[in-house]
């Protein structure tokens, strides 16, 4: 049998104009579909989840995949944003939805700046532990706080309550902005620095990448967008309580999405989020088994596909979507090394 041998001589970067145009067409199509009511409510419910999870997964990927900060406590900002929205839109304050969302994101940015003072002194596992504990501490705080209903939580009462259509458009906008920002960021000087940090943090530092400022920038951006996505998630859900806001399950989903899709790739979390949302929906038929299946898939992927779906595909087929590289280029020695 004749086997055609694929000699990898180049990496093709697939984000030249055709790819970008395809993405823009897809986004505009979805927008029009949402506005004109062409998409059914069921599909929209899926879309809202997919968009929000893409945003969160992408942010976690930026943190862990690029900046080497494996945070296990991003739910801190989700909970903060959720509670901010719930409080600010309550009859007592009566802020409109937009104001409340921005307020939540703003609070998260302030908290993230404060947290960075503590967290950035730590590295590796110390960092992961501290983020987890910080989120737990906030969870305890909201458990003890009478105004937010302690363990029972709060019902979100926005007046007028946004329709599913509006929520869908909002979450899509945030997702598109987040993706554009990550993509844009990775193609700038900062992005080159981040990519260098992803590959080898010590060498990156020694050639003059300012590790601290890069980390800070990424951490604050991640807090901002995670908070926005979290705020909308709770508007969609209608209520919040400490365990749902600051629960570790948020980290489970973000980690799953980034790992399955492939950490350190921009396109990975998109695939990961789509898989996660559909898997979650399917697993709802088997109550009790969902985490067992998610956990098993995560472990198997880590052991056998350490680069995730997109990472493995990119390595095997030599292309990159949404690459931070600006042009296709020839590989010099890669073929022989195998």
């Amino acid at each position, binding site marked *: 049998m004749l086997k055609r041998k694929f000699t990898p001589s180049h990496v093709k970067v697939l984000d030249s104009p055709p790819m970008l145009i395809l993405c823009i067409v897809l986004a505009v199509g979805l927008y029009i579909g949402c506005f004109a009511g062409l998409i059914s409510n069921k599909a929209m419910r899926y879309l809202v989840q997919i968009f929000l999870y893409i945003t969160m997964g992408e942010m976690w990927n930026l943190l862990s995949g690029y900046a080497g900060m494996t945070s296990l406590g991003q739910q801190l900002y989700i909970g903060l944003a959720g509670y901010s929205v719930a409080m600010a839109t309550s009859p007592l304050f009566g802020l409109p939805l937009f104001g409340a969302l921005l307020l939540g994101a703003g609070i998260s940015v302030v908290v993230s700046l404060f947290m960075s003072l503590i967290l950035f002194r730590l590295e590796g596992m110390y960092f992961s532990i501290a983020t987890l504990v910080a989120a737990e501490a906030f969870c305890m705080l909201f458990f003890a706080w009478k105004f937010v209903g302690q363990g029972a939580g709060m019902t979100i009462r926005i007046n007028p309550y946004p329709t599913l259509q509006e929520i869908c458009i909002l979450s899509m906008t945030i997702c598109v902005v987040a993706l554009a920002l990550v993509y844009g960021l990775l193609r700038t000087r900062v992005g080159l620095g981040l990519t260098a940090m992803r590959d080898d943090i010590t060498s990156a530092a020694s050639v003059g990448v300012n590790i601290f400022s890069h980390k800070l920038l990424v951490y604050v951006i991640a807090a901002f967008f995670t908070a926005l996505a979290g705020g909308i998630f709770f508007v969609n859900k209608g209520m919040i309580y400490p365990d749902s806001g600051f629960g570790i399950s948020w980290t489970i989903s973000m980690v799953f999405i980034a790992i399955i899709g492939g950490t350190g790739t921009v396109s990975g979390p998109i695939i990961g989020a789509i898989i996660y949302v559909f898997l979650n929906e399917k697993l709802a038929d088997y109550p009790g088994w969902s985490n067992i299946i998610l956990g098993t898939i*995560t*472990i198997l992927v880590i052991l056998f596909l350490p680069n995730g779906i997109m990472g493995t595909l990119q390595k095997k087929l030599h292309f990159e979507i949404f690459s931070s590289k600006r042009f296709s280029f020839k590989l010099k020695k890669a073929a022989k090394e195998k």
Partner: protein
Amino acid sequence: MYFIQTLVNGLLLGGYYALIGIGMTMILGIVKLTNLAHGEFVIIGAYMAAVVTSALGIDPILSLVITVPLMFLIGFVLQYVLIGNAMKKGPEPALLVTFGLSIIIMDALRLIFTVNEQSISTPYSTKTFTVLGINISVLNLVLFAISIVSILLLTMFLSRSYVGRAIRATADDAEAAALSGVNIKKVYAIAMGVSMASAAVAGLCIGMKSTFNPTSGGAYLSTAFVVVVIGGMGSIPGTLIAGIVFGLAQVIGGASYGQLISYVMLLLVLVIRPRGILGK
């Protein structure tokens, strides 16, 4: 008098909290792995003790004879087959594998034992006696004794036995230990086994002290983290001191603020002395 009462209560609980942290400090210090499944390991220990106690109708403490070797074996196999392979790919993949393990265990326990609260009842769980006007709960005293004995045994194992010396050598410098003929993979597996065995003891104590359910592992993971980081990773005396500090915080802060106080303490320790009180 109130002050001394609080001090005694905190001190007695300190051993109990140190015991929860001790398995984690071993894994962090020796294997250099953040084991996010430690809370679930402890809960497995609690369920095992509950099952053995009720099946054989023996005193809960005697159940350790069965649960400790069994948990050691589980830990050994887990590390040898699964976690060790993930560690080759770097610290983050290993961390995420333990994360996957923790959610699998949580749901598996939920399927087997349902979400109902369980506890291990003992004849002395509500008895107290008074010394010099200070009330001492018999249960707390028993827990303290179990903890101190386990910690002493562990210290002896690490300092006296051949395997213990190999473990300490590996913790200091894995490469140098390997060059001197230590089988690193096996040492890591033994360390994980010992950590699991200590989780079995901690689980028994948790079962006697309070109720537990399949999802309560997360809270004990946080407790273990706080104790370990305050004490300094890998340091057993540090863990004991941190356990006592943690116990005092719990007694002073009560149910609503105890946990919060300890988290704030942890963040302070991280800022002032990131390597912990007795860390290297």
